[in-house]
């Protein structure tokens, strides 16, 4: 961005005289080589037609979590069985409104994080600080920002203008959720897509800023490997635990440790995305684990000080910290926790109050001050706390288990209905193994310990952790540090094989740790596709959990597979706000490889991606509103997303109907003719119940109309092979994906030919169209 500056040494007229005037006026964005496309700074209405094209193929199937609407004081209203609420809204519109609300919350959370980050970094480094996410290897540094807004950001200051746009759109989107606004479910859905698109811009801003200012790895496929797991933490030292998503306070802790020569005397560890981003700042930090590890780590007493910033922090963190005498420092106004704001107090007083136990915690909104305080407090409380924990020993667990009445209450409030009563029965008889077996499937929500749930007030989560001591001790793994962007060079190398289908797919495995079963399922699924030479990208808690698994050679998948964006590569992009590097890779394939215009040209790029880039996202443990807005950003680009069974509670799926031939026509841009291209991809958003089901669906959702015969053959081979393995039979829809004989995997030819004959299959007349859903992209009008 440039500003017009002028200077007047002296100007004199009849009525005034000016001397030494200097002024700056307005914002002028430096023009880039591309002229602007049709849609700079789109508003809610701009892509409504595109959204309708997608929503016509992938119609919403609504899954009401509750029959009632409770949002206004005319209610509650029962919307079931065709009824409308007092405001006139029906069930479909209400469910889609909740989807929009969730996406708007998610987008606002990332944008708010981005604003916080950018403001702090500008105050430290100045608004002219240059953005650099990969030097000359990443010339398309901000694919989303360029695509959506038309701004090519060069400095931290430029990002403020991008955020102005993002915040304006989010305000409008949120306003649409108010009573008496939108009434049509598909328009709500379109707005949810808008929120997703905006969210990817907001996240991109955040990661561009932190990569540049903190000098994180820059598109480095060989970013270092760091320790992950509770067992990797040296408990003989003072331990500082950071939780959340906003890394500046955590970075300041390390800076102070280093400046004080204490970097080897204190363990700095973290949970959730702050931990991931901290390891991008220093590979001396360790990751304790994902979101689900919060309580088990705190209750273990290992942390001497807990420092929180924002997002995914337990609302009862102060209560839990008090139980183990660990002082709590809140560093962010989004999360005061009822603590006094001591930002402006003398640091010696703050440190003294917390070390001496006069206060359980404080708010310090200055990162550097919080960093210093955390280190000094950790050193001060370490000899006093003596790692006080509240995890019961074996004998205590057995004693508590004997009090269990097998009322089943704990199981009935558990999100995964884990068999706690059976495990308690075994524990009462001295066998702690069944309790320990629950360790990897427990998401750490402690609903089982809720007031009035257990008649004997047993602390079941702590009992699971206590029964898993040896497991926790061995919880030592390696995770590759988030590398940030995918380089332009990598895009050039793999763009062709992806678009032609010869690399069978790009998988993005992301999201939270709200798994339906063991966290290891994430890694087991992904290992299968790494062996099959898919490209696997990852971020957030999913990236951590993939690391918390060892293959048959005793290696974590990050040790076993390359970090390059290439066939068989496992690419950890970083934290939640690094997700736009995954969607951005798809954009960059259209822009760099296919040379489609990037500047303000969203619709065409999305059309390209939807029809050509065999990408699929999977969020096996999706929990948050942020996860929904991240998914929504993929939907508008036409990229399908699979969620685990808990994802059904997002209240709707976007499903294709492969049995309706008329839904699967695209336009051949060469001739303008409508061509049947099959259900490719079949769905845009779907929840599945088992990992076997997800693994079969992944290669199928990578099929695209543009696949070459070789590419289609490879994709079908993976789909059919996995279907046979898990379903015990050939799939029943092969005929929909075979366009010509050349599409048939050679090793399955006889079996497939038999099916095609049975289904009366006929070869496609146009097996290789130039597929588009946008009539304006037709180069020659035809029938």
């Amino acid at each position, binding site marked *: 961005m440039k500003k017009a500056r002028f200077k007047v040494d002296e100007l004199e007229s009849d009525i005034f005289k000016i001397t030494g005037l200097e002024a700056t006026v307005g914002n002028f964005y430096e023009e880039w080589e591309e002229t602007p496309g049709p849609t700079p700074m789109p508003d809610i209405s701009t892509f409504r037609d595109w959204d309708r094209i997608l929503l016509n193929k992938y119609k919403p199937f609504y899954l009401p979590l509750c029959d009632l609407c409770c949002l206004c004081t005319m209610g509650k209203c029962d919307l*079931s069985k065709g009824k409308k609420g007092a405001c006139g809204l029906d069930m479909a519109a209400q469910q889609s409104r909740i989807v929009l609300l969730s996406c708007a919350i998610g987008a606002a959370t990332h944008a708010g994080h981005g604003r916080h980050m950018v403001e702090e970094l500008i105050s430290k480094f100045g608004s002219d600080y240059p953005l650099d996410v990969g030097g000359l290897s990443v010339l398309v540094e901000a694919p989303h920002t360029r695509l959506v807004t038309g701004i090519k950001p060069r400095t931290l200051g430029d990002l403020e203008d991008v955020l102005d746009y993002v915040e304006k759109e989010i305000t409008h989107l949120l306003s649409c959720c108010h009573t008496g606004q939108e009434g049509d479910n598909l328009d709500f859905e379109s707005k949810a897509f808008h929120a997703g698109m905006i969210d990817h811009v907001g996240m991109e801003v955040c990661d561009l800023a932190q990569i540049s200012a903190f000098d994180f790895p820059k598109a480095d496929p060989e970013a270092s490997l760091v320790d992950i797991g509770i067992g990797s933490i040296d408990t003989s030292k003072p331990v500082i635990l950071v939780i959340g998503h906003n890394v500046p306070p955590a970075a300041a802790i390390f800076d102070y440790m280093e400046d004080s020569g204490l970097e080897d005397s204190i363990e700095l560890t973290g949970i959730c995305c702050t931990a991931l981003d901290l390891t991008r700042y220093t590979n001396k930090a360790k990751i304790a684990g994902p979101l689900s590890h919060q309580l088990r780590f705190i209750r273990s007493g290992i942390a001497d000080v807990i420092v929180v910033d924002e997002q995914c922090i337990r609302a009862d963190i102060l209560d839990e910290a008090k139980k183990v005498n660990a002082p709590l420092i809140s560093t962010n106004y989004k999360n005061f926790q009822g603590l006094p704001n001591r930002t402006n107090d003398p640091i010696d007083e703050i440190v003294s109050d917390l070390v001496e136990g006069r206060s359980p915690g404080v708010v310090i909104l200055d990162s550097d001050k919080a960093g210093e305080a955390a280190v000094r407090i950790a050193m001060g409380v370490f000899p006093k706390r003596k790692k006080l924990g509240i995890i019961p020993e074996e004998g205590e667990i057995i004693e508590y288990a004997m009090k269990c009445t097998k009322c089943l209450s704990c199981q009935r409030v558990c999100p995964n209905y884990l068999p706690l009563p059976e495990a308690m029965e075994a524990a009462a008889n001295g066998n702690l193994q069944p309790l320990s077996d629950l360790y990897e499937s427990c998401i750490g929500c402690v609903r089982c310990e809720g007031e009035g749930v257990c008649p004997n007030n047993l602390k079941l989560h702590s009992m699971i952790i206590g029964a898993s001591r040896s497991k926790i001790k061995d919880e030592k793994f390696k995770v590759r540090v988030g590398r940030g962007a995918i380089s332009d060079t990598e895009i050039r190398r793999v763009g062709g094989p992806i678009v032609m289908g010869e690399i069978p797919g790009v998988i993005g495995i992301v999201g939270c740790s709200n798994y339906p079963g063991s966290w290891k399922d994430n890694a087991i699924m992904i290992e299968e596709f790494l062996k099959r030479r898919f490209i696997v990208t990852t971020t957030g808690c999913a990236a951590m959990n993939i690391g918390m698994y060892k293959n048959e050679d005793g290696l974590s998948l990050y040790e076993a597979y390359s970090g390059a964006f290439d066939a068989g590569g496992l690419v950890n992009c970083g934290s939640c706000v690094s997700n736009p590097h995954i969607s951005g890779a798809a954009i960059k394939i259209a822009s760099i490889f296919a040379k489609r215009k990037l500047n303000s040209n969203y619709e065409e790029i999305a059309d390209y991606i939807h029809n050509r880039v065999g990408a699929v996202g999977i969020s096996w443990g999706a929990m948050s509103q942020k996860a929904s807005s991240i998914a929504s950003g993929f939907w508008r680009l036409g990229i399908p997303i699979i969620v685990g069974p808990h994802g059904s509670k997002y209240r709707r799926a976007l499903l294709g109907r492969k049995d309706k031939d008329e839904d699967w026509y695209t336009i051949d841009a060469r001739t303008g003719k409508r061509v049947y291209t099959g259900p490719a991809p079949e769905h845009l958003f779907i929840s599945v*119940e088992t990992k*076997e089901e997800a693994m079969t669906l992944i290669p199928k959702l990578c099929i695209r109309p543009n696949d070459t015969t070789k590419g289609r053959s490879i994709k079908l081979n993976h789909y059919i092979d996995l279907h046979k393995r898990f379903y015990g039979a050939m799939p029943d829809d092969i005929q929909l994906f075979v366009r010509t004989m050349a599409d048939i995997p050679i090793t399955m030819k006889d079996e497939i030919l038999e099916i095609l004959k049975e289904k009366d299959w006929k070869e496609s007349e146009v097996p290789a169209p130039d597929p588009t859903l946008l009539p304006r992209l037709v180069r020659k009008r035809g029938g």
Partner: protein
Amino acid sequence: MAAEPWQRYEIPGPIKAAVIKNPEMVSILLKKAKKPVFIVGHEAAEIDLGGKKPIDHIIRIARATNIPVVTTAHTMAEFLKSGFKPAASMTSMDIGNRLTDPEWSVSGEDDPHDLALILGMTYYVGFVIEAGLKSFAFNHLKTVSLDRYYQPHCNWSFPNLSIEEWDRHLTIIAQEIEKK
């Protein structure tokens, strides 16, 4: 056990499933239905009923009535191992979505389904899919949960049952149907 949602916090709304007190009632519903369909999820192949599994009952019922079975998740493999070929296999979302279509049937040729028996989906997934059917298929489809636990969004559901009671209920349904 009482007719309340198995997962305590899955509270539905004012309209809740009628409780199936006598399993014989299911055979009557089946007899009255013009075009029933049986939706079977993965838990039907995983739960041990003391040497047998729910799919063993389902196969008996399906063979006696010729009711088409649609399996969800990867349940199909277990049916095939037992020598029974389901009419279709699809995700639970797909079958839920198709059942909201008043013109859809498994065969693609017959009248649409008017009764869906449901067993074996993950509890909370079944909960939301059945809520979807309650609000978007209520004009043409009745739903019956044969799960072990009360599913409030169906038209009829078993109450929460012990394993032994559930096994007995499923056995009675199969026996009643085989009598006819």
